[in-house]
């Protein structure tokens, strides 16, 4: 039996990991700007930011569970294995980028 080609729609997954990173950055920046503009208490603002970050970590964790723990689909051609590897590593890279660039900064003073 010949292998199936990878469906083109799977290419969107190449953008998924860092798409989550972009979303996290935009939402954190927006919530922070709104919080400072409306003088939210520091604790409430920090909590809101932490929730935004957590939601994005859960999203990327879900993607990881979906892709990282699964083997490449054996019914797909060799491009399937290639794309699987690239997608998994973009997810890992995006997760590390979220944690390193957006995590520690939440400990800073909020609106100074």
């Amino acid at each position, binding site marked *: 039996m010949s292998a199936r*080609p990878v469906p083109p729609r799977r290419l969107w997954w190449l953008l998924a990991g860092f798409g989550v990173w972009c979303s996290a950055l935009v939402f954190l920046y927006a919530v922070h700007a709104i919080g400072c503009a409306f003088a939210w208490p520091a604790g409430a603002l920090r909590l809101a930011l932490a929730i935004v970050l957590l939601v994005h970590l859960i999203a990327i964790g879900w993607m990881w569970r979906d892709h990282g723990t699964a083997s490449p689909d054996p019914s797909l051609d060799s491009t399937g294995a290639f794309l699987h590897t690239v997608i998994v590593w*973009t997810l890992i890279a995006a997760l590390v980028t979220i944690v390193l660039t*957006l995590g520690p900064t939440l400990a800073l003073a909020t609106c100074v």
Partner: protein
Amino acid sequence: MSALRLHRELAAIWATGPGLQRLAAVNHSVIGLRFMATAFVFFAIGGVLGMLTRVQLATPDSDFMDPETYNQVFTVHGSMMLFLFAIPMIEGVAVYLTPKILGTRDFAFPRLTAYGYWCYLFGGTIITLSLVFGVAPNGGWFMYTPLSSNVYTPGVNADVWLLGVTFVEISALTLAVEIVVSILKMRAPGMALDRMPIFGWYMLVTALMMVVAFPPLILGSILLETERAFGLPFFDPKRGGDALLWQHLFWLFGHPDVYIIFLPMAGALSTIIPVFANRRLVGYRAIVVAIIALAFVSFGIWVHHMFTVGIPHLALAFFSAGSAIVAVPTSVQIFAWLATLAHGRPRWDVPMLYVFGFFFIFALGGLTGVMLAIVPFNWQAHDSYFVVAHFHYVVAGALAFPMLAAFYYWLPLLTGRTAVHRLSVPAFWLVFIGFNLTFFLMHLVGLLGMPRRIYTYPGDVGWNWLNLLSSVGGFIMTIGFGLVVIDLLAQFRYGRRVRRDPWRATTFEWAMPIPPAPYAFASLPQVGTAADDSAAGERALSLARGEGYLGFARNGWQETLGVHMTSGAPEQLIVLPRPTYLPLCTALATATAVLAMLFQFYALTLAAALLTAGLFVLAGQSAGLARDYGPLPVGHGVSVPPHTEVAGAPPWWALIFTLVADGTLFASLVFGTFYLWIAAPNWPAAATPAPDLMLALAAIVALVVAAAAARGSLRALATGGSARGWIALAMLALLAAIAACVALIGGIAPPPREHALGATAAALLFYVAVHAGIGLLFLVSNLLRLGAGLVSPLRSMDLRLTRLWLDYTAMTAVIALGLVLALPLLVAMLGPRP
């Protein structure tokens, strides 16, 4: 069939005619060379302007130029190098090389390539002529407001930049869409994504970045031009605007632009280094991951150009950390290249000299980039010559040295000769030494406190010798570039003759005649595992004999293959358009619109814009095939239908990526609205907005009806009925939506000229009206093509494209009109703000 006979038959179909017919050229080789040659002319002009600034700054208290002339010279130098040299040169390389490297005959939309070139040429000419007439842009290459507003720059100088650069950006955007679609759909049969040359990945990611990066700047330029021309105060703080909105929109483009320049050149390096290292590239997969990461992270750090504008520390830290971490994916590539060299058997030749120059200079530029990513250091060095030194190292390191490596590597493809070493080697060292002498010293003078953009300086502040040596370095570098030009020209006559594929490369551009024929490949190569590592030159003869796919001429068609996106299996026969003057005429109409806007002849602007739209509709009338063909043989026992009869033809994907760009522009507009709401001074306005709910709902309903009618037209076509009634209904609905939007704009409070609140509402409504208007053009084209027999149940692409456009219009209209309706609520929320 003999190779010679096949060549004659294909050349008769694909060649561009002589004399004036050259103006009708659409072939990628012709247009690619024109892009590169034109970019090089602008590079030379920009280089002379750069030298003029160095003459001015060589000594203190210099009277060589007066302040106004200096402002124009350095502004045009920067603008020209970025917008008229760097990006177009990248595009030229992409247009000329990508189809050849991917083993196909041309790009998907040759007429669009030609239109992009003419737009670039005319836009660049407008900017260059403005310098001759003394009305050139004079506010710096990033045109910061409020300096560029008509209060502080009352002449046409800033308008020249805004209109000229936007004109060039249209060119860049059209090419970006074309590159994405061509790479995804037009590769050699069997070239699956994991077998695609790494250059293809680099160009794909770069073009996708361009699709998303350019719209924010296009929007910013439109908003600033409407402020200057019509008084809509988007950036005027006294009337509810905010000057920092411009900086956000500009740097949302500006920072990724650095990587848009870097990545294609990194693609060239990733192609050249393995050839000279005599081994395959190390870390193909890691590099693909790295360039995807780089593409995203480069967008997420635009604020690092704005560290001194007063943004809270916590937000600065996001962008500081991102700016530092962007070095990681960059380093992955550099280590992959070093590993390739370390594990191979490197040989030394002229391209490798420039690769060495790249490593040295880009590493230095990267390190100062990490320094500038750190907020406290950035505050000290901001707007000093340290920054000037940094970005010259990054941009020149990322572009100039790999570009020259690429020229020396690929020029034998055109000339059939190699470089004249007695000129090439001294030229390299002059460029390398001159470059470092010029720009390294700028780090030091910057740390000593010299601000950028000053036209002169006093003689007692300790900057004299550094500036003098920097200027001397500039002249050495210029002599080096002069020698490079002489060397490149001398190569045509005095270079050592070489056989095909002089470097023993494995990419397909070397498997074709030297110089490349207009059809590129007499037959298309099949990619298989066995052939991957064989030298391309060995396959050339069999391809020339027509032993690959499409090794014949048929119906006078310019044929190439469309493939499955991931596997590269042949799935459609793409018939490309022949040479035509339409791209030139359309670009001339567009240029007329731009010039009329510049000189405030607004009626002429409108007429020229309508003419441009009409010419686009006219171009559509000569596209496609007039009857159904069904599957046609393409060689090797394979038959595929023409692109007009398949669902995933290039126009479908082109519209999807165009809508991605359009959606980015819309998102930037929505961002601008919220940004002004949250950050601009003098909000809320004196007058409270009260949009007419019924008119807004009427507009939305009309657009939904138009989208539904488009579906109806498709159903009618599929079932053998008449689609014309549905199309007429969609046209009426769109006219109603436009009328509702115009009425809403007329009733906006506060008036758009009085407060940014009204101006943003007007911009949102105008966006909806313009999209409805473009929808009308789609429908007119549908009617004309139905009448001409170019549409059938099997050839339904036109109606599907219209449906997609109207769906997008309806969706964005719901958001835009919803936001306009929500403005009173948003303004009311500002009450409790401290």
